[in-house]
């Protein structure tokens, strides 16, 4: 180390020592699922994105309820039909001391969709957007059609440095060499399967974190995660198993932090096929798919006792659902309520639909993806059998389930007739589930990628399409709500409940729950 560098390093240490509050402390967090890389653009999935928010900033930040706030951009607005203008924050520096400007944004948007070997890229966030630098702190993003979701998309793309980050390989990020961002924490070490250590960035442009170092430990097994919290080896854990919640509530040395998630658990039904493989007449004969009749779909919805599922299966840790996203999110309808349990009404509807004695049905679901997923499927099987739809239940690991549910059928279509699934809205508003679950399956448009029931309703499609081109927020919100109302009235899907996420904290700590299921050190406070 040469002398000047050494002096500078010492000076930095001195500054750190002076500027860090005296209360500076260490924090250890136990994570249920581990990021697969420290490269913020490598894998567009929740654990990775949550981790990258510590080291990197985005132009726009999502707060606890996925509301949009200024990040590296201080303001943004549409300047004409097709162009959005972003004003960038001045005076921001990277962890290595270099300055942030428009070039970093431009090259980050080039790198994000195009990382080699990426198992899930950021292409859906960057596609169709052309970035132009106006000056060092102004950029214009143009699209070919009016695009109201600009801010939501942009809020998902981490910004890396044009000097050290844009040309770096994933391996260089994992070693820490390229892990240089503008975020509230700096990279210290990454040992896959063992730990990730970060340190507070004393020069952060926002609130400097009081946690001088943060250690993330992946602890996949639920009981072991709870035990680590009880033993005091970790201060915070995410995904507390529902079976342990009652026990933890009774203890003085730990606390719980709960919040509704953006994830709805719902049933998808086969709208597409006249002869559906897992729908049979009583006794096993063929039957013209009754799930295509609105009366039958409504009967199924009425036959489900959502309160019982929430109380017994979910141990009270869920909220019954009447639409695609919980109240408070952008684009939800204030008209829709959860369907009431009405077994007699369900039987009447079945009679009206010409199947008074019901039929035979198989519900398929995963058993390791959503909270208590297999138990929910079993409960639904029993409830439907009670009104005459003899339902058998088949659950399987998600590694097998999703492939069959999406592409397992003949000609690469969905295989099952009646499935239990969940959907979390990454954009934090209603167009995400509307477009992916309810919009007509159309690979060219990129719609209905997860429409595993092949629901198709031109009226709903038209409303979604209009909403996706309406830049005016109030008008768009109304269109999304309308589309939701129409789809729910038509029982395109049958919503069951919204998941509630639970974090466990040691006494003296608190966590601000997030709808997007991220576990962030910046959300942990000392009481």
């Amino acid at each position: 180390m040469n002398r000047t560098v050494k002096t500078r390093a010492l000076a930095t240490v001195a500054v750190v020592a002076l500027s860090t509050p005296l209360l500076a402390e260490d924090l250890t967090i136990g994570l249920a699922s581990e990021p697969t890389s420290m490269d913020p653009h490598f894998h567009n999935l929740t654990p990775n994105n949550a981790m990258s928010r510590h080291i990197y900033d985005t132009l726009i930040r999502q707060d606890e309820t996925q509301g949009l706030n200024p990040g590296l951009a201080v303001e943004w607005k549409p300047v004409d039909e097709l162009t959005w203008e972003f004003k960038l924050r001045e005076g921001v520096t990277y962890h290595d001391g270099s300055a942030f400007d428009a070039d970093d944004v431009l090259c980050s948007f080039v790198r994000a969709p195009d990382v080699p070997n990426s198992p899930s890229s950021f292409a859906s966030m960057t596609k169709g957007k052309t970035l132009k630098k106006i000056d060092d702190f102004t950029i214009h993003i143009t699209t070919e059609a009016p695009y109201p979701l600009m801010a939501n998309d942009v809020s998902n793309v981490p910004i890396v440095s044009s000097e050290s980050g844009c040309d770096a390989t994933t391996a260089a990020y994992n070693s820490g060499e390229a892990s240089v961002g503008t975020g509230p924490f700096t990279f210290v070490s990454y040992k896959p399967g063992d730990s990730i250590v970060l340190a507070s960035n004393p020069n952060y442009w926002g609130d400097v974190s009081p946690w001088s170092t943060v250690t993330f430990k992946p602890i996949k097994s639920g009981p072991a995660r709870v035990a680590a919290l009880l033993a005091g080896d970790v201060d915070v854990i995410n995904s507390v198993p529902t079976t342990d919640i009652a026990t933890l509530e009774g203890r003085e040395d730990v606390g719980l932090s709960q919040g509704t998630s953006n994830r709805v658990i719902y049933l998808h039904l086969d709208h597409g096929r006249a002869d559906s493989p897992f729908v049979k007449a009583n006794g096993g004969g063929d039957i013209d798919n009754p799930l295509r009749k609105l009366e039958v779909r409504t009967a199924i919805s009425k036959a489900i006792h959502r309160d019982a599922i929430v109380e017994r299966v979910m141990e009270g840790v869920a909220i019954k659902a009447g639409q695609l996203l919980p109240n408070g999110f952008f684009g939800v309808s204030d008209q829709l309520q959860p369907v009431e349990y009405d077994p007699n009404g369900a039987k009447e509807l079945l009679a009206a639909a010409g199947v008074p004695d019901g039929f035979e049905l198989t519900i398929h679901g995963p058993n390791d993806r959503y909270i208590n997923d297999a138990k929910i499927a079993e409960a639904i099987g029993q409830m439907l059998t009670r009104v005459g739809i003899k339902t058998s239940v088949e659950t399987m690991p998600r590694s097998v389930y999703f492939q069959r549910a999406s592409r397992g059928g003949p000609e690469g279509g969905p295989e099952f007739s009646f499935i239990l699934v969940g959907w979390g809205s990454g954009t934090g508003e209603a167009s995400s589930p509307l477009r992916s679950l309810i919009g007509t399956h159309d690979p060219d448009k990129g719609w209905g990628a997860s429409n595993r029931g092949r629901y198709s309703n031109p009226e709903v499609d038209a409303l979604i399409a209009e909403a996706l081109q309406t830049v005016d927020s109030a008008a768009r919100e109304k269109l999304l709500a309308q589309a939701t109302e129409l789809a729910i009235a038509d029982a395109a899907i049958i919503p069951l409940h919204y998941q509630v996420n639970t974090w466990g904290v040691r006494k003296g700590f608190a966590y601000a729950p997030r709808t997007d299921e991220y576990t962030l050190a910046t959300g942990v406070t000392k009481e």
Partner: protein
Amino acid sequence: MTVFIIRRLMQAMIVVFLMSLIVFFGVNVIGNPVDMLINPEADQAEIERTIRALGLDKPIAEQYLFFLKGIAQGDFGKSFIFGEPALKLILQHLPATIELALVSLLMAVVLGIPLGLYAGLFPEQGISRTIMASSILGFSLPTFWVGLMLIMGFSVYLGWLPSTGRGETAVFLGIESSLWTWNGLSHLLLPALNLALTNIGLVIRLSRAGVREAMHQEYIKFARAKGLPTHRIIGVHLMKNIMIPIVTVLGLEFGNLLAFSVVTETIFAWPGMGKLLIDSLLQLDRPVVVAYLMIIVLLFVAINLLVDIVYSILDPRVRLRDQGA
């Protein structure tokens, strides 16, 4: 002996090849990794692009040929999830597992043999009966449950030992290991004990049975008649003869500890190979699963070879040759 080793190695190659065939086609029957990896918000074009990028659009036979070509160049393929070479990932996780397996094997030997000897020499004593009864518990209680109980007892209630993860590592004799630090050892104790319990029980039973049988043999009676001191009879004549089955079992168990300590590593969040395997299986990270199982086959072949060599040292009557050859 050289011929024996060469022939063994050639057999190993054939086994590894067959294994790769079975595993490769086996894992390709299950699901589609893209469904596990991709963000649910991705549209059809993005899903297609990822399938192509991972090479999953090609027919399976072509994928296998491509894989074999890679193997010939020492490349086991890249992990779908981490984007890094599968071999590198496995080797990264190897030291943690070796450390765990060694300590647990040591526990089995240090605790199991003396206890088994005692129970064999004094079979009628109350202590011996207690030892034998506990040994049954040792291998019949499920590892998962025992692990959680150990955590509850030693970490949550007593607070003596950490409940999770691997401790600090240090470099000593050029080897980086958590065996060299107190923090590391304290993290290692519980998982190693959890892993060792089955083997301690096994070694106790094997030693006891060996002692009971050997005590009535002519050579022990002769040694007694010769007036040899008891410690010499037990330490040399008895031990040498009861060690053969124990060495065989421990050798194979060591392989098992290395390869399939999945449950213990999961409960204690130990960053070893077992955890890597189970995570890769659940997430359909096919290249890692295939590479892992091929390496394990090699490992077992090597261990068996070593066991045979140790045999011939312990019992000069055993000659190194293949049966029937």
